[in-house]
């Protein structure tokens, strides 16, 4: 057991820090720092820079363009990204669909899709959940019926994050409605979002932002060559992806930076009784400390999981812990921010947190964003498999209940 970085790791840390300092666009950094919603172009611009450096596909095998980083290196990169307020990489392409393509796709599919993902030429979205199939994902009904060289797709997908920006969707569809188990009749298919018959309609979340969508398919023809792997085996491929989603969702380094921000803001915020700083209030400090303890434990749980994966283990059902605790911590930090804002949690000033706002601001830079962020972020414990589902996974796969 040893907690220290090696000299090589320290050098790597330096390199990463320097690269971000020199190449991460300042305008995007300012937005992230100030809670301004980034644009589609911001994401693409930064991902292209990262990819030029070869640092986009952290988890891909080296042969496909991955970094080959050790768990410790990935941890260092996460730290440095959070430290420099680096805009997050949109996961749908590089983190989610790509591993499915390079693991289960054929050579032609790899050639066709992976380079565009690396170069952020194509924006992907996820077609998993349906209005009638949330936690019970395998109950999905969107149908794909083979007709000549195409599949004809009908149905509705929901909670499609940034689907209105997407050019392609990876999608779970039912190809065998008569399969004895509902998991067995599902296929994994890639869909060009410009295909006729697709409608993308917004779902506003509690911050009144358009982030998620409903996507309707009305006799949409999709070439059968877009099917990944075998027909009716999609559930297997999808599960791989869900595990990847779970391990990345803990967001430890991001939460650490946010918690530091809570601390420094609390030093400048008056206490609730207007006397002294909120940071001197032992109740507030204790809440921060308890969140920090949970977060520290989570950080080491994540490191242990990554170490186990690196030494040959799979990211097992324990990764459900990362989802549960990671979202609990995020949401606890959201609450601390609301408390920091005091009466200035009350005004709703959506425009202030978008590009091009010119009016007079209400409140300090963060204050009026705390409510909407807190409300919207309740999704964290719901999306990606609710925390109840994650507990169920622990019960079944770890405790054998």
């Amino acid at each position, binding site marked *: 057991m040893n907690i220290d970085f090696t000299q090589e790791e320290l050098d790597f840390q330096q390199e990463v820090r320097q690269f971000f300092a020199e190449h991460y666009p300042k305008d995007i950094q300012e937005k992230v720092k100030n809670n301004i919603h980034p644009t589609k172009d911001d994401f693409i611009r930064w991902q292209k820079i990262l990819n030029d450096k070869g640092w986009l596909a952290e988890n891909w095998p080296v042969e496909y363009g991955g970094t080959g980083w050790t768990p410790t290196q990935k941890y260092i990169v996460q730290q440095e990204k959070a430290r420099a307020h680096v805009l997050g990489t949109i996961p749908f392409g590089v983190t989610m669909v790509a591993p499915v393509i390079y693991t289960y796709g054929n050579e032609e599919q790899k050639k066709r899709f992976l380079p565009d993902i690396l170069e952020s030429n194509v924006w992907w979205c996820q077609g998993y959940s349906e209005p009638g199939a949330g936690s019970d994902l395998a109950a999905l009904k969107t149908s794909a019926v083979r007709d000549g060289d195409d599949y004809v797709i009908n149905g509705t997908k929901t909670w499609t994050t940034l689907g209105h920006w997407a050019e392609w969707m990876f999608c779970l569809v039912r190809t065998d409605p008569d399969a004895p188990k509902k998991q067995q009749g599902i296929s994994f298919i890639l869909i060009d979002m410009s295909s006729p018959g697709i409608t993308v309609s917004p779902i506003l979340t509690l911050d009144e932002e358009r982030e998620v969508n409903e996507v309707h398919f009305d006799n949409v023809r999709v070439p059968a060559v877009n099917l990944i792997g075998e027909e009716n085996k999609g559930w297997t491929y999808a599960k791989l992806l869900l595990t990847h989603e779970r391990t990345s969702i803990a967001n430890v380094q991001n939460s650490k930076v946010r918690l530091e921000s809570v601390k420094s803001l609390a030093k400048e915020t008056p206490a609730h009784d207007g006397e002294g700083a909120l940071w001197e209030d032992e109740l507030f400090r204790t809440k921060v400390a308890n969140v920090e303890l949970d977060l520290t434990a989570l950080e080491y749980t994540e490191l242990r999981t990554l170490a186990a994966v690196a030494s040959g283990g799979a990211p097992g059902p324990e990764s459900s812990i990362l989802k549960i605790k990671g979202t609990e911590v995020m949401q606890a930090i959201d609450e601390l921010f609301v408390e920091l804002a005091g*009466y200035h949690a009350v005004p709703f000033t959506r425009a202030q947190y978008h590009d091009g706002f010119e009016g007079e601001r209400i409140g300090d830079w963060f204050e009026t964003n705390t409510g909407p962020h*807190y409300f919207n972020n309740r999704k964290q414990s719901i999306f990606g498999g609710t925390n109840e589902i994650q507990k169920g996974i622990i019960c079944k796969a770890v405790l054998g209940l």
Partner: protein
Amino acid sequence: MDFSLSEEQQLLKDSIEKFVSSDYDFEARRDLVNSDLGYSEAHWNMFAELGWLGMGFSEEDGGYGGSASDIMVIMQAFGKGLVIEPFLANCILAGGAISELASASQKDSLLASIIGGEQQMALAYAEKQARYNIANCLSRAEKNGDGYVLNGAKIAVLNGGNADTILVLARTSGDQNDKAGLSLFAVPSNTEGLERARYTTVDGFTGADIKLSNVSLPASALVGEEGAAFEALERVMDRACIAVCAEALGNMETLLIKTVEYSKTRKQFGFTLSFFQALQHRMAEMFIECQQAQSMLLMAAMKFDASAEDASTAVSAAKARIGQAAKRVGQEAVQLHGGMGVTDELDVGHYFKRLTIIDALFGNSDYHLKRYTAAMG
């Protein structure tokens, strides 16, 4: 000891609940929130006609009620329907301050216009540096001949954007934290030097941040005596706490009902959610929170009405405990509704928002917990 409502209170409760369930559906409310005014004038006039706007005031003040238990009945019923009309701002905050402070003749004109629904008012007390301490006041009113000149800034003025008259708390003497030397001024909102940044609040009400730059007022603008506003405002804050605690209870009761109903219809894995025991127990805990909140509210209202020695501590106890319950019940209702819970479309998230903001008003849970703890001796 008697926990039952009076006959009048029961009638009032029934009529507001009927209004909420029959005439206040969520889509209509959404349209009101998105309208320029932010609420319905028709509703407001109806509230006035039915005497609801007078229920916050004693008969002496021209009203029809005025006890904390009256306010409790009204606000709990409003809370069930997430009523957006500015009852709190007019009848509890502004009206309450006038009732506590104003001279008989001021009451005659000002209160009558509130009770009659003819004038919109707001109480501007909060300042950024003050957090929840109303004595911490930097806004100043300087004597100027017969009148006053006001300077300062106020935040989160509920109904501040719509108010015809804004009651502004300002310092006529003393230092930043002094309890003495605070005075209240009735400022017509079109007075020169009064600048309003109007906004919708995150929970769908309207509010404003206000700047006062050399606002000239006649002597008659002073509400009541000079320098005597602090104790009066403290009582207003206590009553406002009871009011929003009752509203929160109404919110929570509705959330519990909606969550239980949803759980009986939404199917996952071949069963309705109500089949899953882990979720069942969480709904049982929501029920317990509602019941305990109801008890705290009754306790505080009864102590307030009895002018008990520890009435303010009782109010803090209720605000703290109900703030905790509100967070828990609100978060659980959203979580148990799954993805739908975080959509703007469904009403559940809006109840959750209101509960969140109620905790932020008039001192959050921790503020009142500290006030309570300090009183433990």
